[in-house]
């Protein structure tokens, strides 16, 4: 029954994303309209894929740090991406891919730095050190970003921050293709890690006794989840709360087994983000809200509600 509802929500979301918009496209001309094919459809598909990536990544990271309140951006990735983006703009790097690539490199750099910090602590990928390291790296990146912003031209950087807040206005079939080629590998890796992640919830030693190769598992999950998040940031900026909320909602509805959690979180994340994007571009028309703000505005009360339920149980 729940799956039926999920499928129905998916269809409704896609339909809304394709049919709603400032341009008045008559129903009969919809299939031939370039507005649909060049603007609305790639945008909806991209939002769906990014939302799915963030949902799956959130599930993986919450399992990795054994903390249900973890968000993919807690590990310093958003700070790194922001720094990359700001550097790209401050240096006037050419080409339409300069900004996404720089953001991606920044996010991956942050991931590597957090990992390295964890190694210094002596314990590889220890959950508490990961979280602390993530906060530290994020703060460091934010400080460097602020320094660059204060030294460089003001107006272009303001626009960079608008991009960083998340948005799908630049969605194109090229971007969709990049994600379609890139995302399946980390997603499949995460799917294969589903069962051992169930074991990891018991603790690292008990998981090893039950047959999980915990060291390899942690590395692989950390790498895959970070790469998914980095790609999401590179094409769409920092969109918070999806990676935090979606795993919880899916856990409430479908239980905690990762074999079900990964696919449902992917679908639910996609639905959530596509809906948020549709809202972002229709609610204050003709203007547009950055998507990251919509997910935060929706996510915060939802999170508070879930928090109450979690602490009660």
């Amino acid at each position, binding site marked *: 029954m729940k799956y039926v509802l999920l499928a129905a929500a998916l269809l409704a979301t896609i339909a809304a994303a394709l049919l709603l918009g*400032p341009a008045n496209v008559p129903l009969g001309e919809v299939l031939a309209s370039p507005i649909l094919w060049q*603007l609305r459809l790639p945008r909806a598909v991209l939002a769906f894929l990014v939302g799915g990536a963030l949902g799956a990544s959130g599930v993986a990271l919450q399992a990795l740090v054994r903390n249900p309140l973890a968000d993919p951006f807690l590990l310093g990735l958003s700070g790194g991406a922001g720094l990359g983006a700001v550097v790209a703009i401050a240096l006037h790097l050419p080409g339409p891919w300069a900004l996404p690539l720089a953001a991606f490199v920044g996010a991956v750099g942050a991931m590597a730095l957090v990992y390295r910090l964890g190694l210094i602590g002596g314990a590889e990928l220890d959950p508490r050190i990961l979280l602390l390291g993530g906060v530290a790296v994020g703060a460091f990146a934010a400080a460097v970003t602020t320094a660059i912003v204060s030294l460089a031209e003001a107006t272009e950087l303001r626009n960079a921050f608008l991009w960083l807040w998340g948005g799908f*206005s630049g969605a194109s079939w090229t971007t969709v293709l990049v994600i379609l080629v890139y995302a399946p590998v980390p997603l499949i890796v995460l799917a294969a890690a589903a069962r051992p992640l169930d074991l990891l919830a018991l603790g690292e030693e008990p998981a090893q006794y039950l047959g999980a190769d915990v060291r390899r598992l942690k590395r692989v999950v950390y790498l895959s989840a970070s790469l998914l998040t980095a790609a999401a940031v590179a094409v769409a900026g920092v969109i918070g709360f999806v990676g935090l909320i979606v795993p919880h909602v899916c856990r409430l509805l479908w239980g905690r087994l990762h074999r079900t959690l990964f696919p449902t979180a992917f679908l639910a994340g996609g639905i959530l983000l596509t809906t948020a994007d549709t809202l972002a571009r229709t609610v204050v028309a003709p203007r547009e809200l*950055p998507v990251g703000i919509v997910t935060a505005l929706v996510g915060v009360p939802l999170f508070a509600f879930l928090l109450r339920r979690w602490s009660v149980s």
Partner: protein
Amino acid sequence: MRRSTQRTHLAALLALAVGACARGEHVPVRGGLAVTDDAGRRVTLAVSARRVVSLLPTFTEILFAIGAGDRVVGRTAWCDYPPEALTVPSVGDGMPPSVEAVAARHPDLVVLYRSGPNVAAAEQLERLGIRTVLFDLNLLEQLGPATRRLGVLTGQEKRADSLARVMDSLASQPPTPSTRSLVFIVWDNPPIVIGAGSYLDRLAALAGARNVFHDVSSPSAQVSIETIAARDPDFVAVLTDSAVPPRYATRPEWRVVRAVRTARFLFLPGQLFGRPGPRAAEAIRELRRRLEAAP
């Protein structure tokens, strides 16, 4: 003091007072000049300013245009018009102003654009004993009053007055009936356009072009490509010194916008169009010429 010296001083004072009354507008305070700036401060000078630092390109332009260019001893790195301004030493990019660099020019007046950081810088300069004056300069209407007050402070009231009259008449002109529509796109990802309440929007209206985002009240706003396509402007106006189409012009999602697809761009040089200034009329003429020249 000997009586004859006293009498000379008194006569001089009286002469000044009479002369000041003849000018009419601003009553001199103890023989000095006074204006009220846009931060509500009363700015007084004993004599007209001799060493002026201008911290906005428009003020530099105005000062040269009213014949006070020889008194400008400091400018920002952005002040590039008129060409003579380039010989004036720069005090940095002015964002925020470097108080030390300004003070090093030993000015008796510093002209600033009214913004948060500039208000703070002005306070610091005042503590050093340097007089500062703050003007708003976002709209066409603000050019005239600013010009007049600069004229007072530099003793160039007559020329300032005539320039201000031109500015005022331009500002009070009703919008020309528009035959073409356009959109100002300042950023592509996310798309940022210019709305009403901005200088560019006003220029367009006076040049006979309708800004398709005139209904958006804020000076700039984030919109979607689809909105731009739906409003179907005849032209895409870009502030740039080059004539090369912007980088998004080749992307398929942007080509849904007719003006992008048909490459109907208006390349507007930043020096002339980017800021309100004495050459506003020239900017309007230039824009109108380009609109009419386009197919």
